[in-house]
């Protein structure tokens, strides 16, 4: 997908990506726990910045927004608790349970330093010869 982003950008166009990712350089047991606790599709191949670079981008900015992410997860869990009775009635027990478990695991992973959220900005380095305008 990052290579598609590169393709459709004009030369020097910017790509902004925000993602939850594994904390870099996790070893064995920590890596295993991070993959268990994190979102189902969290990737383990490389840090986000490195993935951008591999796709042809110059990494311009890397911003760690884990602190804000932690606050948002807690907000979500608090909102779930406050509305739990009504949610169980209207959405079903399974939905509420799944949401709570998923967010609680994610918060645990963040608090243990296993997961982070990052915003990266990459510049599409390409010559003018590499582009053509138009929609197919």
């Amino acid at each position, binding site marked *: 997908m990052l290579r*598609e982003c590169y*393709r459709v950008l004009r030369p020097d166009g910017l790509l902004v990506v925000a*993602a939850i990712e594994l904390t870099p350089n996790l070893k064995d047991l920590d890596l295993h726990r991070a993959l268990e606790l994190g979102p189902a599709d969290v990737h383990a191949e490389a840090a986000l910045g490195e993935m951008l670079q591999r796709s042809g981008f110059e990494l311009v900015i890397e911003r760690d927004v884990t602190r804000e992410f932690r606050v948002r997860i807690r907000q979500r869990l608090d909102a779930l608790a406050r*509305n739990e009775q009504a949610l169980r009635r209207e959405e079903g027990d399974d939905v509420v349970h799944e*949401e709570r478990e998923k967010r609680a695991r994610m918060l645990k992973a963040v608090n243990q330093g296993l997961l982070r959220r990052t915003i990266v900005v990459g510049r599409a380095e390409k010559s003018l010869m590499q*582009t053509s*305008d138009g929609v*197919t």
Partner: protein
Amino acid sequence: MHPPANTRLFEEKYLRFQSEAGARFRAASGGSVPNGWTTVEQAEWMAATVGLAPGERLLDLGAGRGWPGELIAQHTGAQLLSVDVPIEALRQGRARMREALGARVWQVCGDGRALPIGDGHFSAVCHTDVLC
């Protein structure tokens, strides 16, 4: 073009919390933010960072209900193409995005791995909470 194998899971995600209690929960979870983990401050920072001029083209890939591409397009005056796989997400964001951006927004149901768009068409792309 074949949709991703987990399209059904993506669609189901957007069918959840559409009840009255669900709406209260979503509002309490993120305030004015329609969806996702990107805060208003972060979206405003993105808008300032991409430095788009009015009329330039922005792609929001994996846009869901339209966040944060909608805010970036509002702040910059850019034209916005909002792309995602689940039609339900696009449907839920349509009225709000039309009100915010008028004729400057298009929505396309599509797979980000094979976009029906020519090379070099956009000045900026935002892609939030899709890789994960």
